[in-house]
């Protein structure tokens, strides 16, 4: 894989600065509630980034992200019950999610467009039923079917979980950066613009999409595992829930689909929304659904996209010149 190095390095400094600042947060005594919300932000951003890669850049509206989240979480939990350390389990979770993506790519990659979306929708439903029936290892029962407490999760401090999520999040950001600035990203962009022209220019459409799908599954699985360490327990109904799809779709759509910075802005808003709507239970998801539909209809480019569109205004251009020093 070839990568455009100057483009990869450009604008990396502010990113590193923000990451270092965020990493210092728990040490300098930021309130605990902030740490919790930032943790959620990291997880959501990693998930949304990976969905943006599929839906925005590959044209694959994947509705099976909960399958990767749940499998990542379950692999870690089951291994923890056998005695494997949590961090090793997390990596195993990512590997299992990626292998599972290879397996389901056999049926779903023969589909395109809407067929792909509904085909992938079935996958988490199948896994949920399997995990409701099947109980892989013994252990304390928590909820229906294969409900487990995450063994050893209580020994991991809030700080550690925070840094873990930060690492997962930053790696998702860097992976997206790397992909978009490599020949894989260029290939994806050309596929998005015109698939047959891309194919006739020597781009392997199937391979490009396939690699993106596997990468997306691995990171999504990793983020899922990190989430379940913090959650402390896992059960099939919430692990393979459509609510996950809602979160990552909302974050991407609010920020701006097909825009690199979109999920970051969107994830901040989704976390604020969860914070504001936490008291209202069922109404919370209803409102999120209404927001999703309205944004898609009224501002399909999302916040970042809309700002860019109005970016022809003078103050904005001046600001851009200042920040990018062009």
């Amino acid at each position, binding site marked *: 894989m070839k990568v455009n190095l100057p483009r990869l390095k450009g604008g990396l400094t502010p990113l590193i600065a923000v990451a270092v600042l965020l990493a210092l947060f728990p040490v300098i005594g930021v309130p605990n509630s902030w740490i919790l919300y930032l943790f959620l932000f990291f997880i959501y951003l990693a998930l949304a980034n990976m969905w943006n890669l599929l839906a925005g850049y590959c044209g694959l509206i994947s509705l099976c992200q909960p399958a990767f989240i749940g499998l990542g979480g379950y692999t870690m939990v089951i291994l923890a019950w056998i005695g494997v350390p949590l961090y090793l389990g997390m990596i195993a979770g990512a590997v299992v999610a990626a292998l599972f993506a290879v397996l389901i790519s056999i*049926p779903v990659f023969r589909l395109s467009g809407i067929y792909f979306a509904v085909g992938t929708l079935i996958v988490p439903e199948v896994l949920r039923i399997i995990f409701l029936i099947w109980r892989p290892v013994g252990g304390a029962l928590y909820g229906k079917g294969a409900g487990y407490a995450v063994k050893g999760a209580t020994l991991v401090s809030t700080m550690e979980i925070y840094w873990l999520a930060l690492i997962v999040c930053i790696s998702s950001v860097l992976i997206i950066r790397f992909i978009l600035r490599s020949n894989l990203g260029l290939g994806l962009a050309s596929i998005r613009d015109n698939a047959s022209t891309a194919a006739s220019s020597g781009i392997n459409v199937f391979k490009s999409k396939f690699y993106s799908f596997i990468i997306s599954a691995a990171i999504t699985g990793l983020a899922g595992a990190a989430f379940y360490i913090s959650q402390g327990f896992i059960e099939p109904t919430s692990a393979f829930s459509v609510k996950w799809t809602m979160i990552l779709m909302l974050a991407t759509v609010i920020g701006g689909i097909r825009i690199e910075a979109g999920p970051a802005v969107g994830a901040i808003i989704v976390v604020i929304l969860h914070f504001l709507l936490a008291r209202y239970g069922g109404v919370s998801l209803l409102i999120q*659904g209404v927001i999703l*539909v309205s944004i898609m209809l009224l501002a399909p480019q999302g916040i970042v996209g809309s700002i860019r569109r109005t970016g022809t205004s003078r103050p904005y251009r001046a600001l851009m010149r200042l920040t990018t020093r062009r």
Partner: protein
Amino acid sequence: MNLDVLTGLATPIAMGILLGGLYALIALGLSLVFGVMKLINIAHGDLVLLSSYLAFTIMTSLGIDPILSLVIGMPVLFVVGFAIQRYLLNRAFRISMEAPLIIAFGISIILQNLYQIVWTPLSRGLTTSYALESFGVGGIRIPLVYLLDFIVAIVVMIFLREFLRRTYLGKAISAASQDRGASQLMGINTNRVYAFAFAIAMVFAAIAGVFLGLTFPFTPQSGVSFLIIAFGVVVLGGLGSIVGTFIGGLVMGLAQTLGGYFLGAAAQMLVAYLIVLIVLGARPRGLLGR
């Protein structure tokens, strides 16, 4: 093979075939929308449930029989369908390829949570006096509603076929589904036709919802499983073929009842889902697809 196994299998087979009628009925609306607008309406299962919940409320508050309550349910869903297509999806088609899908997903989430708030997450059912009746044929007992599902499905399918062939609107829908540009040149207002097609699909969803409620208990989350079943029926049967939809329904019904018979009730949906995935992998355009 001894006779006991055969008589044991007779019940799930008979029930699977009859259930196939219900599944074909649920899939009819999905198939119509897909055929005309090339959109798989992800909210289809939830819209079917809207009819079940409406019938439930009418039955419990006014004491009207669910089947009679369709007099109210069908117009309500017609209007809902017309509005969704006219004000949401029609605009979404102009935005991008993924916009209609994301909006349909949003509608699905909105409906699910609306049901949860209004009707609580409890499992509901349309339990009428005849819902629990059954009759015996050759030593096996079959619930009356299953037979009712099957008969209604056949009647509705014949009706749809005649509607598409004989009426102006039906012909316009067929024309718009075959070639949008050409039908516009022939003077068909395709936006209106799309809205009517969606509204008519929702009327079929209304009928399906009531018979679904008579047959199975339902929860606010049931929509997804019925969407997958309907999608499976469409995939198995191929597009635009009413006979294909019927056969697809039979396969899904048999998969569920036989899966339940061999693997236990908890796994009955699993078999149906796996069949959809396998068929998608083997024949993405459907078994009878062109």
